[in-house]
């Protein structure tokens, strides 16, 4: 579900952030939201004309962050939501995945190999995780942009939209 930055449940965004926001989407924290979030954000990334390498990394990092929220954020209570926000600043692309669940805690019963966090760290140029017990978790991944295509037509050497 699309929402405006001003409607984000979790924080107030600055005016500058409002301008740079490319996508603010809220999903229920259920497994089906993992591919939905990825496909939705992929559409936005393709519109931006990003390099395939970067698109691959954003898709993987986003998927890991949303899957983490779905798997861990609300397991002790009612299902909640996950918000995905994408900001494109002049030199960075920032992906934020937030929930209002149980906070960042170790998951000793994890069924994976604990690869989610390392992958988020590897794919992004900066990974920040914040949160408090029962106040939710915010994952912020920052990706350096080598330079987005400008408004003019002279920037035609970047090609290869999409990953399929």
């Amino acid at each position, binding site marked *: 579900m699309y929402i405006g930055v001003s409607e984000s449940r979790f924080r107030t965004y600055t005016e500058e952030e409002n301008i740079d926001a490319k996508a603010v989407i809220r999903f229920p924290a259920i*497994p*089906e939201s*993992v*591919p939905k979030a*990825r496909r939705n954000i992929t559409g936005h990334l393709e519109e931006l004309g990003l390099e*395939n*390498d970067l698109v*691959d*990394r954003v*898709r*993987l990092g986003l*998927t*890991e962050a949303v*899957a983490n929220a*779905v*798997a861990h954020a609300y397991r002790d209570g009612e299902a909640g939501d996950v918000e995905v926000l994408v900001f494109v600043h002049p030199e960075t692309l920032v992906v934020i995945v937030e929930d209002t669940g149980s906070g960042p805690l170790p998951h000793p019963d994890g*069924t*994976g*190999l604990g*690869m*989610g966090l390392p*992958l988020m760290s*590897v*794919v992004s140029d900066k990974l920040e995780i914040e949160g408090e017990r029962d106040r939710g978790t915010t994952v912020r991944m920052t990706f350096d942009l080598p330079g987005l295509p400008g408004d003019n037509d002279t920037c035609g050497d970047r090609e290869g939209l999409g*990953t*399929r």
Partner: protein
Amino acid sequence: MAPAHEPSNGTATVVRLEGEHDYDNSPEFRARIEAALDGSQGVIVDLTEATFVDSSVLGILVRAMREADRRGLSYAIAVNPEPADPVRHILELSGLLGVLPLAGNGSGTNDSAAPD
């Protein structure tokens, strides 16, 4: 649900993934690979038609490798050789490209034919 019969490649069962696989649908993949490990002398996981995998799929691939090793079964992963292939890229990013036995690259597994 796991298909009743995966295609068999000689003595190895080929488990082929197409499209995108992640936390949402990886339980199906886990069931397929477990059935393949139970029912054959080896498993080849064909990822050449897959377009995305996440850590849940990578975890299944690694666990299956260990399980095949424990049972003395052959095990190999077929990956698109294109450097730009998104799944190859994800395996590279995860560091698993050098860990998982790749089909057809002389990695020592006894798979007889790797999809190419």
